[in-house]
């Protein structure tokens, strides 16, 4: 009977806190959003299930949670190694920033830079949308976060989950769970957050602007671009070396057309495996005890602000460019500068077609969209370099 009572004390039911229960409900909400609303299912299902797994109360003496890392233990004068939990080894890829560059490799192998190469001025929209990151940095410090924490939070505005995780693991590992969840939540909510801002900042006449179809880009251009763009970015901001390096390496694998097998693996099996592990591990790291803190709310608030400012920055910069251009841009495409590939480009297409069903903006929006990926990686490199000096 005593054994049974002792066992019952170790069950999840007896140790469950209100916070754990709330987080499990959040996990279920993520899965529901993915299944019912089709919001980023490839991310929200692993993260949602990870949240549920991470909030099952564990037994203190057993290494089960992501935070139970392997360590050296001094006992009776001898040193022994206590193995960590299985989840901690998966989480290692997140905490040490291993997974994000691998995701970038896959993104590079599936990204077609042709539309950007055919209309180089659209690259600037990818830079303008990074304003959200840098304004949020100021907001973070104003709210009392340290510079490093503010930088890690601000990168949420880049709307790039892997970049946010990478920078958070470097600058503020203790905020990693909240930042990752905020970044991926806002990426999933791109179709909800962006359209009102886009409509608010543009007139109907502007939304109706049609753009010239992109020109044909030669194979040579597509091969030379990743090498030179990599050199430009990393020589200016060496902190972006890992992310930008993997992005352009993946793209070279694709465009060289002599490594089709490698490119194919990077953009299919490999990115899928890493996404599963990353999403699940990030979800499992959101234990109520560490996640349900006042600062998590502030992180979510700052993240939303960052995302909204980034969207507005892209749209307003496109409008400003129109003052000097003979062939006008549809300012809606500026919103795609926040990365979130390819969702923000899809949102641009959707909002554009609400005004004119025969206006196809997707191809044009992909240019600032992929430029935004480069821009946010460079911004992450800059923040990493400057805030760790």
């Amino acid at each position, binding site marked *: 009977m005593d054994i049974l009572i002792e066992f019952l004390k170790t069950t999840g039911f007896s140790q469950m806190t209100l916070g754990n229960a709330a987080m499990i409900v959040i996990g279920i909400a993520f899965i529901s959003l993915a299944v019912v609303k089709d919001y980023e299912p490839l991310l929200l299902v692993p993260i949602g299930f990870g949240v549920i797994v991470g909030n099952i109360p564990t037994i203190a003496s057993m290494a089960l949670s992501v935070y139970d890392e392997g360590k050296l233990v001094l006992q009776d004068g001898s040193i022994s190694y206590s193995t960590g939990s299985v989840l901690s080894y998966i989480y290692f890829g997140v905490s040490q920033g291993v997974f994000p560059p691998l995701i970038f490799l896959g993104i590079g192998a599936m990204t077609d830079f042709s539309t*950007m*190469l055919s209309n*180089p*001025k659209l*690259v*600037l929209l*990818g*830079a303008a949308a*990074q*304003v959200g*990151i*840098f*304004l949020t*940095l*100021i907001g973070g*410090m*104003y*709210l*009392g*976060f*340290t*510079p490093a*924490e*503010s930088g890690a939070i601000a990168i949420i505005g880049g709307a790039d989950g892997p970049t946010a995780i990478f920078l958070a693991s470097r600058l*503020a590992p203790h*905020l990693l769970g909240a930042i990752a969840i905020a970044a991926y939540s806002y990426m999933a909510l791109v179709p909800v957050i962006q359209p009102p801002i886009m409509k608010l900042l543009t007139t109907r006449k502007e939304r109706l602007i049609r753009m010239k179809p992109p020109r044909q880009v*030669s*194979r*040579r*251009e597509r091969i*030379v*671009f990743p090498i*030179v*763009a990599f050199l*430009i*970015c990393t020589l*200016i*901001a060496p902190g972006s070396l890992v992310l930008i390096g993997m992005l352009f390496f993946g793209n070279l694998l694709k465009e060289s*057309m*002599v490594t*089709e097998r490698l490119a194919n693996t990077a953009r299919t099996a490999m990115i899928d495996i890493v996404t599963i592990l990353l999403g699940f591990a990030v979800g499992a790291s959101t234990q109520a005890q560490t996640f349900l*803190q*006042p*600062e998590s709310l*502030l992180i979510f608030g700052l993240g939303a602000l960052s995302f909204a400012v980034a969207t507005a920055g892209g749209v307003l910069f496109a409008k400003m460019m129109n003052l000097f251009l003979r062939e006008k841009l549809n300012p809606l495409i500026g919103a795609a500068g926040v990365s979130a590939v390819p969702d923000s480009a899809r949102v641009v297409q959707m909002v554009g077609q609400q005004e004119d069903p025969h206006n196809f903006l997707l191809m044009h929006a992909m240019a600032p969209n992929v*430029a935004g990926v*480069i*821009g946010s990686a*460079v*911004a992450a490199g*800059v*923040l990493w370099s*400057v*805030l760790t000096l």
Partner: protein
Amino acid sequence: MGICAQAAGPEGFVPFRWANVSEGNAIAISITGMVIVFTALTLISAFIAALPRILSAIERYLPAVEDHHHAPAIAESLRSDEGKSDEEQIVAAIGHILHTEIQHVLKQ
């Protein structure tokens, strides 16, 4: 440390204030960061704009070789045509036209 530490400290929660921003050089970092991002992407943009001209200049000395990686499919189809006589090709063309016409009539 951040907010948690501040909240736990003897002074309690540090109120939102601009001093945090100025002490952390937030504005200078933000402006510098934006300038660096814009510089990098402007250089990329300028390079992309110049790339067709650079490549056409290189083309004079290093003409682009045929894309042999796409070639197999075309070469294969050409090779498969090589063995066929003109007669077979004419029969194939007539067959194609007949098929198209029948489909057209059926639709009507």
